[in-house]
């Protein structure tokens, strides 16, 4: 068995340790004897996106956004849309999450058009939502409690047909107003969760892997792993936030 992972724009969307998600996915497959192939797709590179099982997009700096959008609108956006429709699995963090939406409205009123795979949009503000945070995933997205670190000034609002990934227990989440965090649409998972998201939240990591695996090899079930260290790190932060 083998899963093909595509890391989109690793050259620019690589802030806040998000690459740790790739490390985590690879290791959790390796420990179960499943092969992985990770393909890096930087700006300017092209590949047939239909051959991948799982996509990862991280967060980035504003500085490179312009180059990225040019590349995105050069055709990759349509391929990504097709992959989403095809129920491929996507994990999209922070900037990558915003990019899957329809547009970003800067606080000076400029509109950047994004991929539009998910009916959601982001509005810039000059207040940063920053700090450790925690949210509870909806049942269809593992039902587990996720701990991580959020750092964003954009406020994301979900549109019709897009469910939140979870409900905020501590911190801000999508916009600091409606207690939603992240988004789930088909097999696209979006969140503001740095940390990176997966290593300390193994149940959610396995949901991502299981979804991709089931699509490629129907009927396959991931065997459990010994997650003592992961759970210890998770619980430490969950306890800390509960006490605050």
């Amino acid at each position, binding site marked *: 068995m083998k899963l093909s992972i595509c890391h989109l724009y690793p*050259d*620019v969307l*690589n*802030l*806040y*340790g*998000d*690459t*740790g998600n790739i*490390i*985590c996915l690879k*290791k959790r497959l390796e420990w179960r004897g499943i092969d992985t192939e990770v393909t890096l797709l930087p*700006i*300017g590179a092209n590949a047939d996106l239909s051959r991948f099982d799982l996509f990862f997009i991280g967060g980035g*700096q*504003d*500085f*490179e956004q*312009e*180059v990225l959008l040019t590349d995105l609108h050069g055709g990759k956006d349509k391929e990504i849309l097709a992959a989403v429709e095809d129920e491929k699995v996507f994990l999209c963090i922070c900037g990558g999450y915003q990019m899957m939406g329809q547009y970003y409205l800067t606080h000076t009123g400029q509109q950047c058009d994004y991929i539009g795979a998910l009916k959601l949009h982001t509005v810039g503000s000059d207040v940063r939502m*920053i*700090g*450790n945070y925690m949210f509870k995933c909806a049942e269809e997205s593992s039902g587990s409690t996720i701990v991580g*670190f959020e*750092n964003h000034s954009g406020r994301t609002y979900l549109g019709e047909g897009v469910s939140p990934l979870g409900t905020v227990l501590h911190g801000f989440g999508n916009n600091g107003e409606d207690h939603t965090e992240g988004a789930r649409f088909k097999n696209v998972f979006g969140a503001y969760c*740095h*940390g*990176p998201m997966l*290593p*300390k939240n193994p149940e959610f990591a396995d949901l991502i892997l299981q979804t991709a695996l089931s699509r490629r090899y129907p009927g396959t079930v991931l065997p459990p792993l010994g997650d003592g*260290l*992961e759970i*210890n*790190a*998770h619980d*430490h*932060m969950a306890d800390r936030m509960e006490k605050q």
Partner: protein
Amino acid sequence: MKLKVFLAVFACKLTIKLLRLLGRGGTAIPGKIALRICPDLLFQLAKDVKCVVVTGTNGKTTSSRIIEEIYVKAEASYFANRSGANLINGITSIFIENSTLTGKPKKENAVIECDEAASKEVCRLINPAVVLVTNVFRDQLDRYGEVSGTLENILIGIKNSPRAVVCLNSDCSLTASIAEQIPNRVIFYGVDVPIYKNPVSEVSDAPHCIKCKHEYEYSYRTFGHLGGFCCPDCGYKRPEPQVSVTDILSTELSFTKVRVQVFGEDDVITINLPGGYNIYNAVGALAVSEAVGFRRMLAKDAIASFTCGFGRMEEFDLGGHSARIILVKNPAGANQVLNYLAGLSAETVFVCCLNDNSADGKDVSWVWDANFEKLADMSELIPEIYVSGIRSGDMAVRLKYAGIDEDKLRIFDDYDELIDAMKNQSLPVIIMPTYTAMMDLRAKMSTAFGGKEFWE
């Protein structure tokens, strides 16, 4: 005005005395009190002092220590903010300590390490004679934001230093870009050759041209994004340094020997600290020495004999075997420690202490950007890894996913137990703590094994 200065200085001096009596080394509080009383106090106190300001992401403290040693060798009268109190309050405190009650300076010169974000304000107030910018790396994004923001802060600081000679790292595409935006005299310094034989692979913090956003090409790299960068599109490239390392002659456990060229003149210098990043710190200090106008021999002697700042390769004797503390703040720094470890040939115990207080960075995500996978390749030489600090849980997970066998990891919730464990084995120890973990741990280690108080 004079009365205000007097009151502020008096209140500050008194607070420092009181804190010392209580056995505490608080360096920021006294300055804060003084600034409350007299907001432009720093300007008043600094106007007759010739200041060197050292800023940038990594290497500020070590560079400052070397520069300080040059002043010692020159027998010049100077003071410095020794304890890493590098924000405006701490810097004000040190100026007050070195002023009379009426606000007259007791020393002619100052070597001031300054936080990047604080540099715009500090430079405006003290109008430095020399500014050294070490480099700009990704660092504590929750506090500093993007690297472009850090660079902007430093640039404003220099624009607020109209008379300063500015020493810039030519190998850092971000730092070097400052030159064209300022009218000041600039001295570039750099390293002309690769430093490590087998460096860790790293994510570049600046892969794209700061001017036109095209991807850079490199003729060589030293580490991170440092090296011979060139933009094939707009032509922005590494400027030719006037002070540079032209060859790495030998890399030893406790020192490095390099060939340098200073304004066309060749020489060989010994750097009294190991580690590739200390080569940059040394050559940066050499550039400052030229900017101030010291004799070259003095700088050479200083680089060969300086001792490091606390927690920067600082060595402790655990009773027959040694422990070295190497402070880290960001992925670039951690990768340099890993490069250093990879160069060791003796068995070593590695200790990681990860904290998430505001001085460490509240977001610990950065540990995933450092290449701890390198440790798994060195597994025969590193029989055990100890993990401690507030976020030991996260650190242990990082190491597990780096491919370290879980059986090799020992987690300590308590520094006393950690210190006992280090002592009760016989291998040399390398400790990699974040800032507040280093402060706590080294205080305990100083008590147990001897060492200076941090404000000394």
